[in-house]
């Protein structure tokens, strides 16, 4: 049923990556991102791939799940590949027909760009979406963003907003289902007619959905007031984020691995 819908693609588990403090994961994610963009030579890319493979092993997530997270971007990968291969002209020409010319440099660049995107998605999935619950992620962002409070950025409120949004997704999905059934009982159709008729059909769903969402928001605000909510000031936490020894250890180890591709790149250059 629609109730079981999941947000992101969190896969339950108890691996090293699952247990790692979410702040460390955000930090490592940024580090890997830099590495992926700096690695330029094929050999560095291979090294980066090896590091991502290591993450996959650590996460203990089934290969199928990992591949599933790549699926939505296959189209974009192909698109980037095609654009690059036909537009970049450097080096020896491999193939030429009508207006299409493929060069050695273009091929290299196209493979590199597509591969880079793939690595980026894999790193994001393995570190963040597959092994971290959305709630923990919002906790991490709140904690990492706390220095911004000096600049009067409402960090706590933003985290609260995210977590309430997550909390209400299943409720609103259920409600959408209910309204659609009610409107079909009145003869509304969502699966027939042209695209404009269908879009019009959704007005009958969206208007009540929005009206009810606003009503919910209003009631929730009163309920939060009644439970003494006053923003982040003085608020304690049931599950505060705490760095443990193992968190520091894995942070150190995984940070080092992020530099390996860059070192390989650099050493190759020296030769």
């Amino acid at each position, binding site marked *: *049923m629609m*109730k079981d819908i999941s947000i992101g693609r969190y896969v339950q588990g108890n691996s090293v990556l699952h247990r790692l403090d979410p702040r460390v994961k955000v930090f490592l994610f940024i580090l890997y991102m830099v590495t992926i963009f700096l690695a330029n030579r094929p050999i560095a890319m291979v090294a980066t791939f090896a590091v991502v493979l290591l993450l996959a092993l650590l996460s203990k997530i089934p290969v199928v799940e990992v591949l599933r997270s790549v699926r939505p971007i296959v189209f974009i990968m192909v698109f980037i590949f095609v654009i690059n291969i036909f537009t970049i002209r450097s080096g020896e020409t491999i193939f030429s027909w009508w207006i299409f010319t493929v060069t050695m440099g273009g091929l290299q660049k196209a493979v590199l760009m597509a591969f880079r995107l793939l690595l980026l998605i894999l790193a994001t999935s393995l570190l963040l979406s597959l092994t971290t619950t*959305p*709630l923990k992620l919002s906790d991490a962002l709140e904690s990492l963003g706390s220095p911004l409070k000096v600049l009067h950025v409402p960090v706590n409120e933003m985290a609260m907003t995210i*977590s*309430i949004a*997550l*909390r209400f997704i*299943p*409720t609103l999905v*259920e*409600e959408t289902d*209910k*309204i659609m*059934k*009610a*409107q*079909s*009982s*009145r*003869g*509304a*159709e969502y699966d027939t007619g042209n695209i404009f008729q269908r879009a019009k059909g959704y*007005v*009958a769903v969206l*208007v*009540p959905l929005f*009206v*009810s969402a606003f*009503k*919910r928001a209003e*009631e*929730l605000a*009163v*309920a*939060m*007031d*009644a*439970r*003494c*909510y*006053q923003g982040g*000031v*003085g*608020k*304690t*936490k*049931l*599950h*505060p984020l705490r760095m443990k020894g193992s968190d520091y250890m894995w942070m150190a180890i995984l940070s080092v691995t992020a530099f390996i591709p860059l070192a390989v790149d650099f050493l190759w250059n020296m030769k």
Partner: protein
Amino acid sequence: MNPATKDISEYSQSVKAEALVFSYPTNAGTNVVAVDHASFSVNKGEYVAVLGRNGSGKSTLAKMIDLLEFPDEGALSVFELDSSAEENFWSIRSHCGMVFQNPDNQIVGTTVEEDVAFGPENLSVPLPELAQRVEKALGYVGLLEMAERQPSSLSGGQKQKLAIAGVLAMQPQLLILDESTSMLDPKARDEFLQLVGRMRHDKGITVIHITHDMHEAFLADRVLVLEHGKIRLNGTPPEVFSQVEVIRELGLELPKWAELLCEVARIYGIEPEKSAFLSEDCAKEKIRSILQMKLPEGVEREALPSHTVSDQVMLRVSNLSYSYDKKGKKTISDISFDVKKGEIVAVIGHSGSGKTTLISQLNGILRPLEGMVEVWDEEEKKYISTEKNTDIKRIRKHVGLLFQYPEYQLFEETVEKDIKFGPKKMGYDDATCDSLMRKSLPLVGLSEEVLSRSPFELSGGQKRRVAFAGILSMNPDVLILDEPAAGLDPAGQKEIFGYIETLRDQGKSIVLVSHDMDEAARIADRILVLKKGEQKFFGTPDKLFATEHEYLSMRLDCPCLIKTMEDLAKDRPEVDPLVFDVREAAQALVFGNKGPKEVDAL
């Protein structure tokens, strides 16, 4: 330190309100007075029920006590602290807990335990005390095993318990229940009330309970009745409910036993005294003593309205099974029943018994996995089934389905357009749509004045009627109604059931899903009992409740009226206690309702 953790000193009066006034401006530029010079007090440890029609200002009053709204005039002290003094704000609010009507709209946390922690977190309760409070509160309401679950996976009853746990973890002195039980089924409602009773007993918590349920009101030490923001009645339940005329005028109802007492007394032309309303036993005693009296001259058995059911089967369900996932457990299995022209079939069962799944089958929103759903097509003189895609539109023309809380499906700019939505989709021309729309209005007590208004500016009860009219305007032969009166005040409920009876008398066939056993037994010609997706019974109410306590094995509540009648009929062989209507019951007690043969046979 956080100001919210401030303690309060000893007090004996939880609430003292003097001439409170609260008003708010409307879009039209006028001022609505929600609370009008209300004065009352609530003692420490007391249980006070607040009654009144929808929109009588009950919720506003409750919100003022929790300092969620502030009075325009008057003085309010809570825990003997002046509510207008800023330094008392957190002391008052942090010691008041509130549970609202809609379970979904008061849960903040993404997991059960985080939701319970929300209140104490705001009060700066440090670890490890915070974790202890959460665990204790969850244990108290019986949700400890679900601590890490997502709130959306809980049932309605569990969600309200979660709300109570969230309040408990803040260690309140005063608990305000704002129609907290109105969206629960009878079983969940009982559990919730027991929990509240336990909290009063264990922790001495003061309770203010806003409700439409008269049986709940009888549990209270004292009852306040509001009308247009004014306090009309204030006293113990017997004091309040013995003022029968005023109670009815205020749009409230009496418990069945009190209604029966009034009806019997009416036949004898007397007025029962206050003491008779003290409890059900007192009322029964009084009824017995009235029945001993001599009937006044000229009083005869009154004819009661009756209706006939035709033989034409309009909707036929045979061996219907359905499952949401093909391999999984069946949500409903092997259901067979039929509905005749001019008949009401009530579907009863607890939450999760498959009622919603069943009714979604009846107009083809869901299709059978096994079995058949057939609808009589008057024009073609044959049955059409929900099997074929091409017949679905026809079926929806014949079968109108009104889901629970249908006011949430309104979306057009005007009431007129919204009611016409159905007929238009059915392909009628403009003139026909217009006449169908106009015909549907009086059926639910709407006047043509509302047509040009936006459905969103109407009151809750009016919206419900508009939604109802939106189904009736398609002129269906069969109506499927899912809890059509849920959440309305007693007078509003009575009106809705009145419309249903009129529709039946006009020859509509009606399938009615209801939690209210008394109402279901009274109004239905036949009853279908569902339990965990299985059909436990299908037949007349007489048969269901006559079968020596078979309904008890189905874990159904007995209609309150029958309970009272069974006791009163004990030494009266000429009285059959199986009646479902108060008037009929009174007639039975006074004149007997069994034929002479039946009495002789005993």
